[in-house]
């Protein structure tokens, strides 16, 4: 146990986390520092393209059947996470079901920044993982958003007695696939498989990755501090859910990952990636999809819960936690 704590504390001192806290601190002190929206968009595009490229290169050199079980696990997790919110958060006093399910949908969906944060930390800890695990992103993201919108719509149409409105699933899937995050990632995967991008990958994408990631962490920190105000306007249960859910979802996914590890030899590092993807909550593509899909849900509730608490917990607690666990299992 003390070994685990030492490993956990060592992970807490990673620069990724330092930049995140730096962003929270400057924004809480009302700093005028502003990073233009377009820079933020470019950085997430760059990071996801790089992750996609390394995933594509890995898929090109791997056996496709290895990907099947982890991809299936990702789909199941995306759906289960939303159902958990349906039967826990939504049952709490004073919580409206659409708000709760939208929050669950966002927590089931995936954050590109959290995904970008875990990979270099696994590299630093020298824990091997399959680079294609990053390509599991859409396998969890899309089912979570679809489930949330379907569950909320069914509930709303039952309550209003208006059963004529059927939920169309394909437009939700299409919108998720067309979102900037998933597009960047899939473009990277496709280029990684179809072309040989190693020269540009080695000379451009790989060296700049950590630098851009640290800037993104400052932005995420600032964003978290600003969204705290939104969260204060909604029930405290959302804050409590946002703190517990990433850790719980991470453990569920890590457990599933270890089962797949036993069956197919999926790496423990890969189980960490799966756990962190499950722990993360969407910040780019999820909110607009949910706002359009569940219009009656209060965006302050789900965006506040995800951005102000969910993402910091996923980056600051879940990443060190699961890397620490993996190091312990690898007998370090």
């Amino acid at each position: 146990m003390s070994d685990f704590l030492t490993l956990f504390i060592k992970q807490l001192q990673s620069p990724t986390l330092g930049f995140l806290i730096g962003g929270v601190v400057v924004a809480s002190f009302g700093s005028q520092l502003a990073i233009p929206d377009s820079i933020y968009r470019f950085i997430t595009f760059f990071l996801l393209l790089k992750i996609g490229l390394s995933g594509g290169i890995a898929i090109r050199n791997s056996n496709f059947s290895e990907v099947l079980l982890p991809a299936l696990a990702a789909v199941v997790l995306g759906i289960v996470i939303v159902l958990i919110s349906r039967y826990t958060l939504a049952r709490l006093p004073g919580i409206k079901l659409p708000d709760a399910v939208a929050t669950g949908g966002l927590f089931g969906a995936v954050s590109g920044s959290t995904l970008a944060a875990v990979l270099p930390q696994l590299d630093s800890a020298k824990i091997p993982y399959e680079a294609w695990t990053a390509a599991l992103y859409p396998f969890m993201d899309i089912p979570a958003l679809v489930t949330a919108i379907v569950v909320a719509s069914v509930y709303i149409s039952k309550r209003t007695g208006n059963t004529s409105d059927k939920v169309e699933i394909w437009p939700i899937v299409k919108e998720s696939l067309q979102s900037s995050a998933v597009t960047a990632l899939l473009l990277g995967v496709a280029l990684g498989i179809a072309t040989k991008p190693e020269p540009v990958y080695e000379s451009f994408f790989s060296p700049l990755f950590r630098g851009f990631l640290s800037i993104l962490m400052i932005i995420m920190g600032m964003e978290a501090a600003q969204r705290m105000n939104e969260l204060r306007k909604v029930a405290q249960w959302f804050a409590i859910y946002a703190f517990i859910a990433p850790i719980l979802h991470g453990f569920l996914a890590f457990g599933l990952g270890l089962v797949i590890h036993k069956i197919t030899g999926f790496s423990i590092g890969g189980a960490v990636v799966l756990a962190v993807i499950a722990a993360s909550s969407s910040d780019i593509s999820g909110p607009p999809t949910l706002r359009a899909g569940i219009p009656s849900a209060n965006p302050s509730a789900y965006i506040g819960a995800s951005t102000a608490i969910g993402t910091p917990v996923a980056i600051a607690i879940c990443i060190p936690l699961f890397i620490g666990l993996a190091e312990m299992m690898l007998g370090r």
Partner: protein
Amino acid sequence: MSQQVWKLVIVAEEILSKKLTKLIKDAGATGYTVMAAGGEGSRNVRSTGEPSVSHTLSNVKIEVLTGTRELADKITHLIESKYYADYSIITYISQVEALRDHKF
């Protein structure tokens, strides 16, 4: 060379932008102008320009010039029935003078 026309202004959530402009064109308006907007209303401060991870909290202001009051009312009613309940959105109208000779 000027004519009296109606200026319908819609301030709404940015995620509605595409749907609203489609609705405006489908209703028969000849054109519109979209601007980024920010401000405060009954659904809290909504701004544009600060670093924002998702555009869910940004606003747009859409201006439509219509030749008749009926067309402006038609657009307003369509927006009202579809979006007033769940979204931050306001509409207002004024009479303006269009300086260019143009069929609205």
